[in-house]
């Protein structure tokens, strides 16, 4: 019998502020424990939270990018639970009237179709501290540096139908958060975290009981954890059991999810409006001020690349995965005047070498201007595309500019017809058998001669000239 998977994601994105959401403590990552936790972050009696303006602006920024409603009046609530890394005994969050509601994002499916994923809401809240369970002889160590770091919790509709769609949505949102500068999206440091609500049902039936999987901090884990959870739920139902609504933790080492029993009461958070914070008012002028600073969004950029540079949808989507790559491409395309050539190089040699070196484009040793210089040498026939790749590798290794390397290594392409003719004459003389076969109709042998001639010229013969002369001589 067939089952349909239903997935909704809750994504926590840390916001790129210097100070915390309700206090003037630093949010810098990696400081000595508790050196960035002041009286407000420690939940001392008598302190008052004061809302960070930048956190509000960044929430509006994301809201506009997902075409959502920005609440003219938004309120903060207390979410009550006890855990030592949340010293107040509650988390300041939003419940009724979140700052962002009713947005959406379009994801690309594997078959090339587009699917719209609804985004129910995005609300501001404070992060908790960290608990360290090892090395303290039966006690737990608490670091409150992260407590009070601003988060935007982005809640999707249960619109995804398999793990791949969930990954596509998460990746797209991750790219958007970084594009907008809303957060750094660093998943290793926990700046972008995901919980998944997963259930199964018969197609068309009502939603099944869902389990919430926590701790999904990589694109690889989320796909595996969801697939595992789906199997677990189907097994339970098919053997006559019932799925229990609960929170489960994904363990990447064992590749399984397990129940978090301590969260049994967790859904009873007894939210109420926080009396320490007044309602937040956002005027149309505030919204327009943020809108004016929005960069070109990934989807719009992709469309523009397809129109302005006549690129394929595939090339354009690769080039717009990150703002830095898109900027690099545009600089190269404009510099060399051939967008297709620039796209081939950025999506080809550049992205391959970056991947081989596990490097981001921000750290690329070959500047866009340096690459333009190399591409110009392809365009003016100084080097072939193949030789240019060797030159690029040398540029990457810091051996100098394209011209300097071509000059030093003697890589200049041979366009001199007589030199190429000499090479070809020699090859024809050396291979009478193949020549006879070719002339009797074995066209495929043409490639053999090209290969021999290229080898003899150390790859430096201009391919077009070579082909022309070879053809003439063979036709004889």
């Amino acid at each position, binding site marked *: 019998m067939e089952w349909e998977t239903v997935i909704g994601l809750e994504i926590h994105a840390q916001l790129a502020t*210097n100070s915390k959401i309700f206090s003037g403590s630093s949010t810098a990552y990696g400081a*000595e424990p508790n050196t960035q936790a002041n009286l407000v972050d420690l939940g001392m009696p008598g302190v008052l939270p004061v809302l960070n303006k930048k956190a509000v602006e960044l929430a509006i920024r994301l809201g506009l990018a997902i075409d959502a409603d920005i609440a003219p009046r938004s309120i903060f609530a207390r979410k009550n639970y006890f*855990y030592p890394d949340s010293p107040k005994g509650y988390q300041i969050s939003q419940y009724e009237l979140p700052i962002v509601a009713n947005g959406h994002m379009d994801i690309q499916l594997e078959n090339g179709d587009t699917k719209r994923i609804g985004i129910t809401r995005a609300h501001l809240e404070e992060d908790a501290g960290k608990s360290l369970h090892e090395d303290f002889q039966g*006690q737990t160590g608490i670091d409150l540096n992260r407590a009070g770091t601003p988060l935007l919790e982005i809640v999707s509709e249960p619109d995804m139908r398999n793990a791949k769609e969930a990954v596509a949505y998460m990746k797209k949102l991750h790219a958007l958060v970084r594009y907008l500068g809303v957060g750094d999206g660093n998943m290793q440091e926990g700046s972008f975290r995901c919980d998944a609500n997963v259930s199964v049902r018969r197609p068309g039936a009502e939603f099944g009981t869902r389990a919430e999987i926590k701790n999904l901090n990589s694109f690889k884990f989320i796909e595996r954890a969801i697939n595992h959870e789906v199997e677990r739920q189907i097994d339970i139902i098919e053997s006559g059991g019932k799925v229990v609504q609960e929170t489960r933790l994904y363990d990447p080492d064992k590749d399984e999810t397990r129940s978090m029993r301590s969260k049994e*009461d967790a859904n009873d958070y007894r939210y109420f*409006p926080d009396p320490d914070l007044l309602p937040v008012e956002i005027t149309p002028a505030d919204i327009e001020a943020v809108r004016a600073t929005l960069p070109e969004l990934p989807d719009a950029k992709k469309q523009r690349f397809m129109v302005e540079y006549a690129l394929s949808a595939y090339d354009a989507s690769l080039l717009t995965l990150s703002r830095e790559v898109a900027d690099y491409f545009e600089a190269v395309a404009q510099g060399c005047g051939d967008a297709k050539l620039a796209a081939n190089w950025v999506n080809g040699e550049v992205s391959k070498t970056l991947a081989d070196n596990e490097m981001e484009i921000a750290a690329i040793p070959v500047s866009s201007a340096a690459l333009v210089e190399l591409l110009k040498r392809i365009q003016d026939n100084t080097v072939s595309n193949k030789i240019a790749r060797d030159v690029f590798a040398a540029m990457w290794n810091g051996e100098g500019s394209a011209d300097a390397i071509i000059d030093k290594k003697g890589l200049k392409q041979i366009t001199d017809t007589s030199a190429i003719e000499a090479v070809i004459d020699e090859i024809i003389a050396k291979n009478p058998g193949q020549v006879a076969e070719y002339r009797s109709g074995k066209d495929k042998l043409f490639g053999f001669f090209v290969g021999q001639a290229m080898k003899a010229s150390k790859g430096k013969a201009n391919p077009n000239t070579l082909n022309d002369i070879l053809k003439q001589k063979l036709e004889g």
Partner: protein
Amino acid sequence: MAISEAEVKKVARLARLAVPDERLAAYTQNLCNILDLVDQLSAVDTTGVEPMAHPLEMMQRLREDVVTETDHREKYQAVAPEVEDGLYLVPKVIE
């Protein structure tokens, strides 16, 4: 509106409050009285009235995003029951 003794126990557990068994009936009665009062308020027709989130008729003032705090860990940890390596120590909590 009535509230049961079981509900009182649950709310007490969530709030980490100890309610001795011999006081449970009295707590339940008192809470029922309070909820009855709220029920009387519920009788008022509030059609068209925006729910009040805060009694002050003011809007939240915002803070510029500037780090204003310096490290006072030593002072804060001097009053903590137990610390080690800069961490506050608490009874073990683990999933």
